[in-house]
């Protein structure tokens, strides 16, 4: 018997999912998260779930964990104090950035510029210079390096980042500085840009390297502590951490490159969605993860999430591969307001957050939020079956009425429907970003809805986009833990090439890809994946020579020829922009991703029902839809059986999520536990 453990730490709950690999039988535990030391909650959950399964901790083969430790360090500004070493003349590389000011024509008036992650007073420059072709123009002045690093020694620096100009072409000077730093700043972890991101563009490389150093001490402490406690607790298996790109990384590799973990949380959701959708027989889908303050949207083709080259957390944008998640700054807590001047109905970007929260939560919030609109319309019944929070419909109505009064609508219900329509429209913008704007027709995709509010809004969004069916997986925490438990170890090597196809031979491409694959494969072997079990995939960034943006192109194999690659690029350019150029192609970056075998996790089936869901009926209720009050059933999701067919209008409730089924639609329970929503009348599909 072999067991895998998926662990997802959320803001409120820690979800632990134990999977018996052969049978696919799962056990779940949900415990309170312990923000002071997340490991405590994790250990509690693991203890509970093993007890439930009747196994000892020693029988757990692997612990697979998605963590927001790195993300939170950035969002809360609580990372390490980072010292930065640059090339002479470039000390202000983070201060100047790309000179970019966000917003429209008068945007500079209201833009608060964030402080750089490495303070300017802790940034030193060293005398050296490498050319863009890798030739050394000025040797590294080691005496100068010692003088500069000595300045940082007394400055309380907890991590060091080194990013020299053109080091992607010649890393020698950075490596020598690391050696000297080991003498002068003993115990301070060093991030080198030639390791973290050996790619052209000094600002992006610097900020990514600094971010790596910024989160590293916390990630290291957390991961080492957790691994230690797991060992002490008797868990014999290895700990692996979920990367932003949806692959797993052995604990020690995660500590070396924590900047690859920034989107570990959302990646878990997308990876879990892939597992769930696959079980339902859908390989192409869009994920719709709507939470309290924001909503994450990603597109998945053939069960593989699209991987983007940028990771964005709060104000920070770094170059690191991650599941291409687009975030819409609206969620259940978004506040509706009516500017006096224009009398327009706006939803967000302000959010009531967790405190005071929506008015309906009764924690002191008075401003109308999306959640309050859902309560007024009856979509979120105030007496939730097993609900975490008792809702106050009177407070919700009072709050939403203020919008009705300001805009001149006849009732709170009309205002509430307006709020829902507007927020759905914002979501639609996000769905379009990943679909039509990337050349994909959303009607070719299913919509996987999760997060606290996703299943409430998904039916309406599917109507707007034609993305059917809506798949609502079993509760959201489990989804992430499932994602953690059902993905594979992965590592990646990347390099900037920067050559036109005319200047390259076919042999060059092959040699580059093979070298990258060998590097990444060796590291994965170091994480315990036998080379025979490794699968390699290749991706290159190509553009027409002279363009400012590259398009990532998956390469079928290292033997792919340049004309074949050019044809793949042209097809993608045509699909995205509907025209081609006759200019030569340019290979900008190349990457090899090496993946271990996918775990064999069996499938569990719900007991078969009769199709009639009435055994799960929890009550009846009135909903306000399309300006009318209609009678609707409320069902308890935990009591639904496979094949049960829930006709809308209906509400399906469970502990941490609520699904709304609109009139003219129905939800059928899939044997794997997901709800599949479709229009009753096929013409609407």
């Amino acid at each position: 018997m072999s067991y895998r453990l998926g662990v997802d730490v959320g803001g409120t709950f820690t979800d632990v999912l134990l999977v018996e690999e052969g049978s696919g039988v799962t056990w779940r535990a949900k415990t309170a998260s312990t923000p002071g030391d997340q490991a405590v909650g994790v250990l509690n959950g693991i203890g509970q779930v093993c007890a439930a399964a009747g196994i000892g901790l020693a029988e757990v083969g692997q612990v697979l964990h998605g963590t927001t430790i790195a993300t939170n360090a950035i969002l809360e500004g609580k990372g390490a104090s980072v010292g930065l070493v640059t090339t002479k003349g470039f000390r202000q590389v983070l201060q100047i950035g790309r000179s970019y000011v966000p917003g429209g024509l008068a945007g500079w008036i209201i833009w608060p510029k964030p402080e750089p992650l490495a303070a300017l007073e802790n940034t030193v420059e060293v005398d050296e210079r490498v050319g863009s072709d890798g030739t050394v123009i000025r040797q590294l002045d080691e005496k100068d390096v010692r003088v500069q690093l000595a300045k940082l020694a007394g400055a309380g620096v907890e991590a060091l980042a080194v990013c020299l100009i053109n080091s992607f072409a010649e890393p020698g000077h950075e490596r020598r500085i690391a050696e000297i730093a080991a003498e002068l700043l003993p115990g301070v972890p060093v991030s080198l840009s030639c390791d973290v991101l050996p790619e052209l563009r000094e600002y992006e490389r610097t900020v990514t390297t600094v971010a790596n150093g910024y989160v590293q001490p916390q990630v290291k402490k957390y991961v080492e502590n957790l691994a230690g406690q797991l060992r002490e607790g008797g868990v014999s298996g290895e700990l692996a951490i979920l990367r932003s790109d949806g692959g797993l990384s052995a604990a020690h590799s995660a500590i070396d490159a924590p900047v690859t973990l920034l989107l570990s949380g959302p990646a878990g959701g997308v990876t879990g969605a892939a597992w769930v959708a696959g079980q339902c027989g859908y390989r192409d889908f869009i994920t719709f993860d709507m939470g309290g303050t924001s909503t994450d949207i990603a597109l998945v083709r053939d069960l593989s999430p699209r991987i983007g080259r940028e990771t964005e957390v709060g104000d920070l944008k770094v170059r690191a591969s991650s599941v291409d998640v687009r975030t819409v700054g609206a969620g259940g807590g978004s506040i509706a307001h009516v500017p006096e001047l224009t009398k327009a109905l706006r939803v967000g970007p302000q959010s009531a957050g967790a405190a005071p929260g929506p008015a309906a939560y009764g924690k002191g919030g008075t401003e109308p939020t999306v959640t309050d609109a859902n309560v007024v319309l009856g979509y979120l019944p105030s007496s939730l079956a097993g609900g975490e929070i008792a809702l106050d419909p009177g407070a919700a109505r009072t709050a939403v009425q203020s919008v009705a009064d300001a805009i001149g609508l006849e009732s709170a219900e009309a205002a509430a429907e307006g709020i829902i329509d507007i927020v759905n429209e914002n979501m639609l913008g996000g769905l379009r970003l990943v679909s039509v704007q990337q050349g994909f027709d959303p009607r070719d995709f299913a919509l996987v809805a999760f997060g606290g509010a996703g299943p409430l809004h998904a039916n309406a969004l599917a109507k707007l986009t034609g993305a059917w069916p809506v798949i609502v997986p079993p509760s959201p925490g489990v989804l992430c833990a499932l994602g953690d438990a059902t993905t594979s170890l992965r590592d990646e090597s990347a390099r900037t090439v920067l050559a036109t196809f005319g200047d390259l031979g076919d042999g060059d491409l092959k040699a580059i890809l093979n070298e990258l694959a060998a590097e990444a494969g060796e590291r994965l072997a170091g994480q315990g994946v036998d080379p025979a079990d490794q699968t390699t995939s290749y991706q290159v960034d190509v553009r027409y020579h002279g363009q400012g943006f590259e398009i990532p192109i998956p390469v079928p194999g290292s033997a792919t020829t340049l004309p074949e690659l050019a044809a793949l690029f042209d097809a993608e350019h045509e699909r995205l922009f509907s025209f081609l150029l006759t200019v030569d192609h340019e290979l900008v970056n190349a990457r090899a991703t090496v993946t271990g075998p996918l775990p064999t996790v069996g499938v569990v089936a719900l007991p078969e029902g009769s199709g009639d869901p009435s055994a799960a009926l929890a009550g009846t209720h009135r909903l306000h839809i399309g300006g009318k009050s209609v009678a609707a059933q409320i069902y308890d999701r935990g009591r639904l059986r496979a094949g049960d067919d829930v006709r809308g209008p209906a509400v399906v409730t469970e502990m941490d999520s609520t699904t709304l089924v609109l009139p003219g639609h129905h939800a059928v329970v899939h044997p794997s536990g997901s709800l599949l929503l479709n229009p009753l009348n096929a013409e609407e599909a």
Partner: protein
Amino acid sequence: MAEIIETATGRVDPVSVDPVTLDLIENGLRNARYEMDEVLFRTALSPGIREQHDEFPLIGDPSGKMVVGQFGLSVPDFLDGFDGTIEEGDVLLTSDPYACGAAISHANDWLVVMPIFHEGRVVGWASMFGHMSDVGGKTPSSMPTDARTIYEEGVIIPPFKLYRKGELSRDALAIILNQVRMPDWNRADLNGLVAAVRTAGRRVTEMCDRFGTATYLSALDALLQRNYEAMRVLLAAVFEDGKTISFTDYICDDGVGNGPYELKLSLTRTGEKVHLDFTGSSPQAAGPVNYYINENLARMFFGIYMITVADPQILWNDGFYPLVDVTIPDGSYWKPRYPAALSGRNHGIGRVFDLFGGLLGQTNPALLNAAGFSSSPHFMYSGHYTSGERKGEWFQLYSIGFGGIPGRPLGDGPDGHSLWPSFVNIPCEYLESYYPLRIERWETIADTGGPGLNRGGNGVDVAYVFGEPGEIAIHDDRWLTYPWGVNGGHPGTRGTKWIDRADGSREVIPSKIHGFPVSEGDVLHFVTWGGGGWGDPLERGAGLVALEVRRGLVTVEGARRYGVVVADDGAVDSAATAALRERMRVGRPAELPVFDMGPPIEELLARCEEETGLPAPKRPVWEAE
């Protein structure tokens, strides 16, 4: 006047639109406009669009009024100047500012206009212009600093049908592209512009399908009306009836020895309407710095300052235009007579930020910022490789400089940033990979930002080491007049440029030059100007000043301008600081000036050569009519 051919007959009667649908359509239009940007950015080849994002999209109603966009491109003025029919599938192109009522303001901007048809009738217009990095003419990048007529500024494309009913006019395009140095750039960028307006067209017809044409069109009217109503309320609240306010700023020179040019703007509200009057500005320039401004663009700039603060999410449109009258004197800097040269208008268009800021800030302290990096200085370097694999190959660089954002009510101005939206610098490593040059220094210069409670942003020194002989061109300004400070803040430092020659000599470079030869090993220092300071510098936290000294953003000497004495260890000398601040307070007027423009123009001109190393320009005067 264009004749529009529609196959549908009968009119679409207006319907009432509920407020939520109105907001849905507003949002859909906003998304479509950003999608236009995205399509062009990602496909463009020429650096002006690719890296600097110098492009502006618009979606209009059936009459051409802008319902979403950033700049009033004035489709109506374009249509007025077009003689012929317009049918479904047509895409029009022009680069002639004089043929479209200054819908674009120099010949580098190529403007694409497309009618959006739905079920046989025009439901709107999509249009977009982008700055082509080269449109031919006598200098690389097509902005000769000594041009006196537009004929010297490259190919001038009259309004014509690039696509006629969907069919590309290949011959015309071939003739146009034969005039330019980098036809691949122009072809790619033009493709991107056309793809972008077609994207907008698709989004608009989708909305007509989804909401119904009558609802869509009525929503556009309502969105225009929303701007009108909002502005009506704002104007009455902000401006005193019958009182005229004025502000004057400057363009330092015109490239052929004249300057500074006065840019004067006055505003008077009478009843519901305001009058923007550019009377009192200098006559048109002999050189190419004229900024031929469309009246609607003046309205637009005005509106942006007025309304964004009240509802930042509002969809910008032309709806409020009837509330604003605009007077621009013929033959002035703003409305030069054909065929005056126009290519170097980037300083004028940027200085409009300072001009409106200074004008409107007088009534509303919340909006009063100091003067900032109100331009987008150009730097060009071109030539042929003389050795290596690329021997004989042509290279042509076009890039934009960045400088100090002004001190603001919100806080300090960022160092070395852009006042224009979506402009980004070109990374050093990118430049070194694609051009024969190396960058030795790319840093902001301490003390160049004006002192204030909120400091102005510092200017930047970029030191280019040339790797091949070639020629450079520069379009810069604010080398003579100062980026002013406000509310007690001081001006920022002016910009300057020089070359350290490989032979050890140093040469100061004027702010507008082209065809300037450089040799391998020469080093150009392009130093931009700082932003003005905001508020009393003596009120700035002494600890913050000292921290900025340790950061290298302010020098120990510079800290004294804040009345702060920083000790050798980088800490504040509190006693010395208190004494210095007291001394400075006593020695200055009790009431600090709202504007600190620096020395008067006469004094600047008198000391010009001594201070800047460049001869003083000659002041322009209106000729007697």
